[in-house]
């Protein structure tokens, strides 16, 4: 039987959730045995080459590219998991949600105290660039998400236990320490 296929991506996140995935320590060797990676920063495959079993999404959606990637993941993954606070709630990037996007862009590129090099006074407008969304959206507002792993980042043990449970079809072991946050 071929190994289950795993894909991962970081949208509007800090890569901390991926770091946490690496934090499973030597179990990373077991993971390699357990699954095959497809599109993921872990193996640097840039586009899907096949249908995957599990997709892990770090980060919410702050621009049009995030939306396209997320929809692509939904299409190619049978099970989609929101990994961490940013994917589930928008997280730190969503701090901007209370401020109109126009104001954010103006401050970032035109009027902010650290703006010194933008001598042409433009807000980046190259058609190649992704377009900013009016606010940062959690993933479940854009596509259907099957599971949520809370935490910032979710603990390595939680990620590991989840993957093992899904792959082996066993009950997940969720001790309090793994999902408590205070």
């Amino acid at each position, binding site marked *: 039987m071929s190994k289950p296929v795993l894909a991962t991506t970081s949208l509007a996140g800090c890569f901390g959730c991926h770091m946490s995935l690496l934090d499973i320590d030597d179990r990373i060797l077991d993971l390699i045995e357990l699954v095959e990676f497809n599109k993921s920063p872990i193996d640097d495959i840039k586009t899907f080459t096949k249908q995957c079993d599990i997709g892990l999404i770090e980060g919410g959606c702050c621009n*049009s590219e995030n*939306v396209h990637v997320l929809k692509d993941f939904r299409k190619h993954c049978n099970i989609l998991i929101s990994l961490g606070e940013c994917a589930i709630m928008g997280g730190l990037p969503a701090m901007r949600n209370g401020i*109109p*996007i*126009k104001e954010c*862009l*103006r401050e970032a590129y035109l009027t902010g105290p650290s703006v010194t090099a933008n001598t042409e006074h*433009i*807000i*980046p*407008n*190259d*058609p190649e660039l992704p*377009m*900013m*969304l*009016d*606010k940062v*959206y959690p993933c479940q*507002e*854009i*596509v*259907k998400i099957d599971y949520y792993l809370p935490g910032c980042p979710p603990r390595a043990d939680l990620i590991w236990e989840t993957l093992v449970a899904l792959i082996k079809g066993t009950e997940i072991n969720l001790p309090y320490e793994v999902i408590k946050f205070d």
Partner: protein
Amino acid sequence: MKTSISNIIDRYGNDPVRLMDILLDIQDEIGYIPEEINQKIADQVGISKAELVETVSFYHFFSDKPLGKYTVYLNNSVTAEMMGREKVKQTFEEEAGVTFGNVSSDGLIGLFDTSCIGMCDQEPAAIINGVVFNNLTPFRVKEIVNSMREGEAITEMFKQNYGDGNNSSELVKAVVSNNLRRKGPVIWDPYTPGEGLQKAVSMDPSQLIEEIKNSNLRGRGGAGFPTGLKWEFCTKAKETERYIFCNADEGEPGTFKDRVILTELPKMVFEGMAIAAYAVGAKQGVLYVRYEYKYLKKHLENALEELRKERLLGKNIAGKKGFDFDIRIQYGAGAYVCGEESALIESAEGKRGEPRDRPPFPVDKGYLGKPTIVNNVETLAKVTKILKNGSEWFNTLGTKESTGTKLMSISGDCRYPGVYEIEWGHSIYDILEMVGAEDVQAVQVGGPSGTLIGPNQLPRSLGYEDLGTGGALIIFSESRDLLKEVVMNYTEFFIEESCGSCSTCRNMPVLLRDKLQKILDGHGVVQDIDDLLEWSKTLKISRCGLGHTAANPIVTSILNFRHLYEKRVLRDREFETGFNLADSVRESCEAAGRTANI
């Protein structure tokens, strides 16, 4: 200007506890509370500037910017919407040349929304420079704005007679109507000030509490806590410096009966406070009144003054040696949550109206950390009558568990909106007949924090056995879109009024609102309805009743009108996003000057 501000602060003995009064007076004097004077106020009352800003920034009617020579606060409650608020609002905007939330460029007119102002039986209504204007129409709005342009004084803009009863008295002069439709046997039984109090002082305090307990009187503010028991708890508190608070915050949309009591029978309420004071040995009382009823200030102060002259307040009250008690009036500044008893106390201490963790309850640690009784206006008025006529008499009215009467505030789709005093035990059906309501689709019992019930529940009866209520009934006819017009409005109300302390209450109603909007926009699925019910449960861990009930409009409408939701959701799929990429990138593309390529 500087001297006048220190004078104002002086007036209140430089006491930080009186910060609300100080800020209200400054706002009256200057029209707003300029940031530049924050440090000065803070220094003079001896608190930090941060503490001062905490208070100033909390209340809806305090502003750090000028709000216009004429400041219009137009009520945005459901009944206002039902009675034509949208056209009134539009006319204000067109005539004043400014949109809501702003002040016209010449500084003449500021237009703002405000939550329910306690006039649901005479909507649309607005408060303009502290004065209530009711039954507004586009025609009236044009006249009012014209008068503003001509610089008329606000009280000269009335084009109608003053309201009935004391509304037209010299000290009130308001166009507000009592709409008192039914005088019941308790509140409107003939009243001579002092009769209740005389009876009270002829007993000893423990006998008096026994009498209240025997009456089975329960709090009329909504929660229905037994009044005698509350008083008894207070007498058991260790500290002997104790306070009596009367809760006249009346912020629950759809409730306006306390306004009518305070207009017609303020002494009955003050007398009830004095009786409570005698029961627990309090020397000082506070009537906490919502800002929206500021027009009653002189009238209420006058009632206190007369009671002092009649020796029913002050020293050796009602001829009882050593029974000293007096009352001060504390105005709020626009915050529904201040009706919650511990928030009310915080506010009366000059702080943000944030509810406290309970326990300790106010009867143990309330105002200034001392044992405090908080009772509703109507509860205290009833206390006076129970003393006068006896607990046995009170028990003959109403039902076994719900003795006496209830003042109902009735509004919405009916011929005779207003205030009715009825005995407990009537069915909703009876009441609808009484007020002339036809084609009833739904009734909101108890305001937004209560329950939305449908026609099959009209036989249910009013009383603690079944539908306990603070007394608001809002009626919706078949023509109303319950989800869009009612549930949405109520949910927005809770979002606006949350004090923001608890993450649940700060966030969940927003998420619920957005989900409801998604359903209204035609992007809902069945799962969304279930999510609404499931997510609402998290609100139960909030600190106060506001959070606990913030999802009630959504939850009770799903339980009783699920078909209205089902009708709007897509049944052929499991998931549907409400997200639209083109819409969400529009603004940023505009800012960058690029065309969106979706």
